């Protein structure tokens, strides 16, 4: 049995330390918001936060996450009200939606490190997250929108 700290909650699960963290999150902890895409860190669909970094959970072993702080899309905000989630809704970003939990988790790291990102910052941060529907222009728009919301919130 191993203990994982996911979204500030402790999960004790029967997982091999060599198991991909994505399996543990989805199949053992039951948090299915994080998606399986390629399985080899090429698409970004499985992006979660490990100690605040946008880690690809499909190639990350459970052993790397023991004792660390894991955040999944379910833990990004309490009421789905992270500025990015609000902006995603407002800009109607997703088409099929499959890649968007990963997109949001990468964008959240970007906004944390660069509260007012330029287009170049967005390219640099988001180039590891692929969207087969091609929603990239709306992703860019929503990130700028979320940055603006975040700035207004901070200014209050």
């Amino acid at each position, binding site marked *: 049995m191993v203990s994982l700290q996911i979204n500030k909650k402790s999960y004790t699960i029967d997982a091999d330390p060599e198991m991909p963290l994505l399996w543990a999150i989805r199949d053992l902890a039951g948090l299915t918001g994080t998606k399986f895409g390629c399985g*080899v*860190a090429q698409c970004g669909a499985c992006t979660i936060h490990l100690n605040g970094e*946008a880690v690809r959970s499909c*190639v990350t*072993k459970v052993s*790397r996450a023991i004792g660390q702080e894991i955040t999944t899309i379910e833990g990004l905000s309490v009421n789905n009200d992270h500025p990015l989630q609000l902006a995603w809704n407002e800009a109607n970003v997703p088409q099929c939606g499959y890649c968007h939990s990963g997109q949001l988790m990468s964008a959240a790291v970007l906004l944390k490190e660069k509260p007012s990102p330029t287009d170049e910052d967005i390219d640099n*941060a*988001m180039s*590891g997250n692929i969207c087969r529907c091609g929603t990239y222009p709306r992703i860019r728009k929503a990130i700028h929108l979320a940055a603006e919301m975040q700035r207004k919130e901070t200014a209050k």
Partner: protein
Amino acid sequence: MTAQQKNPPLKSSVRLISVFGILLTFVGLMAFGLNEPLYPPAKSNTLVIKKDSITSVKAFKAVYTVLMSPRCMNCHPSGDVPLQGDDSHLHTMFPKRGTEGKGVLAMKCANCHQPANTPGLHTPPGNPNWHLPPANMKMVFQGKTARQLAKQMVDPKQNGHKNMQQLLEHADDGLVLAGWNPGEGRTLPPMSHAQFKKAWTTWIKTGAYAPKN
């Protein structure tokens, strides 16, 4: 009476020495903080140089074939995007070097590169210390001639602040060794690590001469 005249000379001297001492401490701390070496100090200092330019140049030519192989050169690119594959193409997704060589924003190297190789063909290779050289010392291999690279290797201002002893020991650095454990689907450098280390050691111990071209 001025303020200076109020203090006896001894008291003034003590205060001056104290202020100077504090300043010196700060300067020392700043210097170490800002110029922290990229590599640990040399384990020993037993380097004996026996100059022999012909043997040295010959050894470096062997070293150069390894340094220019994809397993070494791919992480010493001329630009800020690492290279990938046996054809040394730009890394897919275009991850950027970043200040410390560890990537930027949501694209840090360790987000995908794990402490060990990921199983499977062409999956991300891994190492606990996976990174590019930092932005302030890029240590570029790509596009360098043997002469240019040899001269770069021995210059502490271009080699990660390494002296010759540290350079000698660098043959056993974890990331250098990772070149011989590249993960499935990648060719190895053109000689074994033992042969490389022998050529590297010979090059340094015979004077670290640079080839003419």
